[in-house]
């Protein structure tokens, strides 16, 4: 046994107690015609060799480059206290707190997570938790249809394409429909949700809309007129879903301030490493009146038989193990440990610290924008942004590749993120956070100027040679 305790003698004792000669007898119920042929897998590795192989594989990833990648997943300073707490076996080797008497650690920390996110979003009901930002957005959209008994939603193209694609998959299953609201192509409001188009889509009496979904900041990093979008949605009897980035909520108006009914978002920026896509944290919050529609786990404060304060899973009649085919969602295992990470992160920074993270990101982003503009790549849009924005670069995909070979992850080509949109074809989406250094900004600007000035073609050699 690799991790098990049983010695041959233990096994013999168990077999003897059962009165059988071989463990094979316990598998005789499997019909002979479907018994497995031997599996062909690489032979088991010792811990030493396993660690060597893992180090090699990890070493084949390049995480040492100057990175300006964002689009919903951000590199932040991670206070070591967060991971120290996550490594407590009492947290990470527990499961769903079915037995509250011996799960108060998990239950209280999740209650605190709900409370912290309620402060950030301004919404009172926070479910803990969903798989990631994309599935939380899809669940939010489904919620609007359940609550309004309507079968159609509108999604701004300022919502991350992966969230829209996930919503599309979930909606296909549920036999619901959605339409996309375009972004304005030019002028001072370019890159934000087209309110006139939204108004037209909401006005169609044949197609009543259950929910309107927009992101703040949006995919392109721009600030949306959320209050106006919310007013239009509500005037048409639809619910309003705000897709939010949680760190930004330390400085941006919370969803409650612009009357959002539901907030969804990707919680990765709250203390969770990028790790190529997950596990992350799906944030989902709503106003009190929607409490029976929200899917996912809710922890409530109550008391025990001695009157002590204690916590328990509650409002369980929404969940699959009770309601089966009538449940609000099929979610069971969620992202609880990531919710714990988010709570420890927010508490470790405190209100001032979280505000500083958001504000420093904004300041660094402004420095980046100025440096890139100076290098010949102006912003693609003129509207206000927080810490992420698009720049205009002729032949953006090729330049992006050439910069990669100089050791720079020059953001994300919008032609890859939003292939259909001609107005974005020359865009690179770039971001800065508090961990972006002045040297990285300088390197990016210098290399970009060089690329734009001359020199077509991809330089030979491996990524990052001669840089950093």
């Amino acid at each position, binding site marked *: 046994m690799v991790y098990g305790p049983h010695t041959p003698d*233990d096994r013999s004792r168990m077999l003897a107690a059962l009165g059988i000669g071989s463990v094979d007898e316990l598998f005789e119920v499997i019909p002979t015609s479907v018994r497995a042929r031997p599996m*062909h897998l690489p032979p088991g590795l010792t811990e030493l060799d396993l660690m060597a192989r893992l180090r090699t594989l990890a070493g*084949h990833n390049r995480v040492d480059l100057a990175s300006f990648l964002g689009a919903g997943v951000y590199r932040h300073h991670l206070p070591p*206290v967060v991971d120290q707490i996550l490594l407590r076996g009492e947290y*990470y080797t527990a499961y769903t707190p079915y037995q509250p008497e011996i799960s108060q650690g998990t239950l209280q*920390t999740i209650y605190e997570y709900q409370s912290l996110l309620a402060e950030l979003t301004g919404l009172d009901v926070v479910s803990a938790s969903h798989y990631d930002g994309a599935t939380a957005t899809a669940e939010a959209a489904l919620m609007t249809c359940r609550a309004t008994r309507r079968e159609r939603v509108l999604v701004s193209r300022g919502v991350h394409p992966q969230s829209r694609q996930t919503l599309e998959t979930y909606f296909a299953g549920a036999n619901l429909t959605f339409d996309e609201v375009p972004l304005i192509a030019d002028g001072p409001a370019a890159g934000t949700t087209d309110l006139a188009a939204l108004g037209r889509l909401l006005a169609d009496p044949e197609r009543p809309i259950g929910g309107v979904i927009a992101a703040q900041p949006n995919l392109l990093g721009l600030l949306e007129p959320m209050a106006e979008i919310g007013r239009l949605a509500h005037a048409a009897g639809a619910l309003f879903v705000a897709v939010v980035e949680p760190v930004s909520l330390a400085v941006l108006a919370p969803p409650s301030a612009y009357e959002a009914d539901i907030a969804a978002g990707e919680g990765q920026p709250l203390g969770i490493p990028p790790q190529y896509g997950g596990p992350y944290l799906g944030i989902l919050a709503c106003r009190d009146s929607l409490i029976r529609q929200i899917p996912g786990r809710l922890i409530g404060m109550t008391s025990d038989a001695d009157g002590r304060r204690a916590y328990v899973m509650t409002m369980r009649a929404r969940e699959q193990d009770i309601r089966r085919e009538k449940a609000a969602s099929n979610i069971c295992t969620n992202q609880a440990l990531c919710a714990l990470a988010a709570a420890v992160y927010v*508490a470790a920074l405190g209100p001032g610290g979280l505000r500083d993270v958001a504000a*420093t990101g904004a300041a660094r982003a402004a420095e980046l924008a100025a440096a890139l503009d100076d290098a010949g790549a102006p912003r693609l849009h003129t509207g206000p942004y927080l810490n992420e924005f698009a720049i205009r670069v002729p032949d953006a995909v090729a330049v992006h590749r050439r910069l990669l070979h100089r050791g720079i992850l020059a953001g994300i080509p919008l032609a890859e993120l939003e292939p259909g949109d001609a107005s974005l074809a020359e865009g690179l989406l770039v971001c800065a956070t508090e961990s972006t250094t002045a040297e990285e900004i300088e390197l990016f600007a210098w290399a970009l100027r060089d690329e734009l000035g001359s020199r077509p073609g991809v330089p030979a050699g491996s990524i990052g040679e001669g840089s950093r």
Partner: protein
Amino acid sequence: MSVTGPKLQPTLFELSGPGRAAGRRIPAPPADALDRLPSDSRRAVPAALPEVDEQSLVRHYVNLSQLNWGVDTGFYPLGSCTMKYNPKVNEWAARLPGFAGLHPLAPDETAQGTLELLWELERDLAEISGMDAVTLQPAAGAQGELTGILLVRAYHRARGDLERTEVLIPDSAHGTNPATASMAGFRTVNIASAPDGGVDLEAFRAALGPRTAAIMITNPSTLGLFERHIVELLEMVHAAGALAYMDGANLNAILGRFRPGEAGFDVMHFNVHKTFATPHGGGGPGAGPVGVLAPLIPFLPAPRVLREPDGTFRLERPGERPASIGRMRGHVGNVGILVRAWAYIRAHGADGLREVSDDAVLAANYLRGRLEADGAWEIPFAGPCAHEFIASGTALKRATGVRTLDVAKRLIDKGYHPPTIYFPHTVDEAMLIEPTETERLETLDAFADALLEIAREAHETPELVTSAPHSAPVRRLDEATAARQPNLRWRAATPAERSSAG
């Protein structure tokens, strides 16, 4: 309400004091950093987040952690959940900076290590399950189910077969199965189990027809029984033009013994947080990869991980495979969890994995035998069990009034996490007991002794059992009030409330 028990903690908000916020974490931003933002987009009132120094924060979380029970604390025989030991080397692996620090939109050529690992894991899971291909995208078992049933839907639609609107599910199934069928737009047809706990072939035969899209079968079943009639059932399903989905939550019983794809299941999910020892995290995260036979491959979620002829790896590009059901979530999956699963599989190899199931099944049968010999607990189904088994407290309840819930709470006093109770719903007063392969014989014996002792207590001093737990950090909770007047977030007391309380 007081917060007086040992280790019980006030909330973070009560620990807060102005100016206490922990540490100088990052340089202060310039004072005008946000001036360029329009004022109406900015937060008017700062969020009322707690301000706590780092030491107090650590004590808060460490003390709270000690109110928890985990596999690292002790025996956790929670049936259907496979609470086995979580190897520490896997935690180390997932935290390697090369894995943890990789951005999901990093260009393929900077992500070769992770892509190679994912590609290998897909193949390992395919080999373990006898499936032709695997997607690692689903975030948990339930999302794997949704993926699988959407694949079924796409398969029938691609054949122009639009009449298949039903999914047949035995009544012993986990709640996620029917909830999944609904989310995927199907009607659930519940099929009663046969008296021996297995599938009722005749009931399935009667329900199968041109409307059946799929059956969802858990094998071994949620009763801990291998389905004896699996061959006939699969034949019947395929003859009706339907597909067979296997809920793979119980794969820990059959590694190296039964490969669902080889046997004829068309699609299944894995729970890597069960079979492959990735931690349960207090409720998650896990991962729920899905395996399929060849006819379903075109529909798999995008993006897939591909290997180029030159041996490099890349992600599928948007739109590259038009028949795909699309995307189930952001990016490629819960990669940090998948790294752990890969490490677990590679540490074992084929022989090691088979030994895992051998020991898991042997341990479950041994424990079951100990209880059966005593007679205090009913063991409703005859013959060997798989990796878990049902014990029922129906007779005990009749004789003493002590319910399975009480027994579970009393087990806490004896130093054990209770088994899964009242699931599956088809057995009254059920306990679903899953010891896993990583518990010592001494632990199994001591647990059996504890259960037998509780049965005696139920007869002699029933109040002792019905008022349990006595030694846990808190006693039984007022769940009714929690649901009737939900308090789901901390609210600072208003000055008026504070003075009236003082």
